[in-house]
């Protein structure tokens, strides 16, 4: 493996000559950046970045609808990167064991054993279409933000910074080929120092932004500490597939997740419900079961969030499951369950959590204890037992109406 021996205690020249050269050569712009304001070396644009209420023009003026449909097929993207010399790797499971994270959070984790266990890399220039889960953004779910998405990413080991920017060029050529307007692509840069496991990764980080929407980032780490061999550099470049598809097709961001099969004006589910459903599906597809601890905790958390919004009205949820499952099935190599099993497990968990909601509600309005009832029964069975209990029918009927059961 080619190596770079760099003393990481020396400050990295920021912004790097390679970055400046890359931006100048391609006439790209930087967003307003306090660190670089007034820099004679770089052109700075006054463009928004990550604003919550920013209205994206592409929502109503799609860029290239045909290209959005092409992105539904992982083979389409694979072909492009394979033709550029990348090894195409199989996706990793989203559910991880013995890893630095419980769930796969980024495509670069394909190199985790190389970085931490000092394994030999099968290939040092790779592309991967990686489904990922990021629970940390639960409070920020909105159009453009989901809990799970496809992180299309390239990784390279032991390359120079010039080569890293050459790979970024390949990415930008791909985006422009899809139809994105080069004039609307700009960058925000920073020096980054991020901890991964017991290693500190220091380097130059660029956010790639389109019309105010962050669509990807490129991180170059000149030197990753190794114990038994020389340090090496890492190039980590990744994009959110669904955000790119959103720009191309317009409309709702969450339409990509259904393969455009359930139009948003027909399906009125809240964005948070949609985001939690997608996340549940990818986990259940991989064989995860809900629980109160460990990996399964996430499943239960997502289901409880869904119930908080839909309560007992599950009809829209049931309708939308199959197209989402069909879509995710194309992107995972690790399906452990078929479509019907996935639907059954998700709905069973949703009804279990609705049962909990119903019992808590009844306890609150009636003043009577409901702790003796089993929430793992079917809702129909639970209601029957409630009707035979000390809680009045009127209270039960009102609760079911209030919680929209049977709608």
């Amino acid at each position, binding site marked *: 493996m080619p190596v770079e021996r760099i003393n990481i205690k020396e400050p990295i020249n920021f912004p790097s000559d390679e970055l400046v050269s890359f931006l100048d050569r391609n006439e790209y712009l930087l967003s307003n950046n306090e660190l670089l304001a007034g820099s004679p070396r770089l052109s700075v644009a006054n463009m928004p970045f990550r604003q919550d209420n920013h209205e994206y023009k592409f929502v109503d003026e799609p860029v290239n609808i045909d290209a959005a449909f092409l992105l539904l097929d992982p083979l389409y993207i694979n072909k492009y990167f394979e033709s550029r010399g990348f090894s195409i790797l199989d996706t990793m499971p989203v559910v991880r064991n013995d890893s*630095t*994270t*419980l*769930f796969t*959070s*980024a495509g670069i984790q394909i190199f985790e054993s190389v970085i931490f266990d000092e394994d030999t890399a099968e290939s040092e220039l790779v592309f991967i279409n990686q489904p990922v889960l*990021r*629970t*940390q953004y*639960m*409070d*920020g779910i909105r159009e453009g933000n989901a809990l799970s998405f496809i992180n299309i990413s390239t990784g390279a080991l032991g390359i120079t910074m010039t080569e890293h920017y050459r790979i970024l060029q390949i990415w930008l050529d791909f985006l422009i080929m899809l139809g994105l307007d080069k004039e609307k692509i700009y960058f925000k840069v920073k020096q980054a*120092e*991020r*901890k*991964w496991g017991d290693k500190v*990764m220091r380097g130059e980080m660029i956010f790639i932004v389109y019309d105010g929407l962050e669509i990807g980032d490129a991180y170059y780490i000149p030197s990753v500490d190794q114990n038994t061999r020389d340090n090496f550099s890492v190039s980590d470049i990744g994009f959110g597939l669904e955000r790119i598809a959103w720009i191309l097709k317009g409309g709702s961001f969450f339409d990509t997740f259904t393969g455009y099969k359930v139009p948003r004006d027909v399906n009125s589910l809240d964005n948070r419900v949609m985001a939690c459903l997608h996340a549940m599906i990818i986990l259940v597809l991989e064989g995860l079961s809900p629980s*109160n*601890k*460990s990996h399964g*905790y996430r499943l*239960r*958390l997502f289901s*409880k969030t869904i119930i908080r919004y839909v309560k007992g009205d599950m009809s829209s949820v049931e309708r939308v499951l199959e197209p989402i499952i069909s879509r995710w099935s194309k992107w995972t190599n690790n399906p452990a369950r078929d479509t019907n099993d996935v639907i059954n497990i998700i709905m069973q968990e949703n009804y279990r959590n609705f049962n909990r909601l119903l019992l808590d509600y009844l306890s609150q309005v009636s003043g009577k204890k409901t702790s003796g009832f089993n929430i793992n029964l079917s809702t129909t069975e639970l209601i029957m037992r409630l009707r035979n209990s000390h809680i009045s029918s009127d209270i039960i009927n009102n609760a079911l109406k209030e919680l929209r059961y049977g709608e």
Partner: protein
Amino acid sequence: MVSNDTKNRKGSIFLAGGGSADESAKFDKVFLSILHNKTILYIPIAMEPGYFNYETHYDWIVATLTRLTDEFLSIDMCTDLNRIDLKKILLYDAVYIGGGNTYRLANLMRASGFDEILKEYNKRGGVIYGGSAGAIVLGKYISTVKEEDNDRASDDKGFNMLGGFSVRCHFKNNSDIQSFNYEQLSENIILMEDTAGILYKESVFKVITGDVFIFNNETVSPASSRF
């Protein structure tokens, strides 16, 4: 959610010395036992984001707390304090403030106005759990850990929610207090070892676990079980 029967009383404050999950397990169980709906808002921002931002921080809090109970704990995480207001925070039984750099934490909380939201939340019965930096920031001064002030220009005041006491965690021996600014920190400093856990309720500190000391007028002495 902050319940109606506590809204006229200040909420409890749990101060943890910042040890490992095993070291704080007994104390954490006490914390979880008083939460009526088991809803917790976790704030990890005393630490810098990692390679995957705060994903591993969320993994950690879920693993740390869910192993202590068979009940479902509803744990949300907030990494942007500008997104949260009093109305939202009152939906939680407790706010859990994690450890890291105390000055970073205090600065971010003040800049967003979250310090005032937190005080009001506690006044209305909300429970606060502060681990390490999360505990220190609730005290009168945070210069008990002045070595964490990387800018050397930050405000040394804490949120003063502990009856005039300040806190220092990870206390091992007297050499830890050599760096104290004596003028500011001459009295009423709680020194907590890693295993220490204190419940502060109705103006009384109760030592639940581990060893706790009090620094007063240049003297360190063991704290009594209630003070």
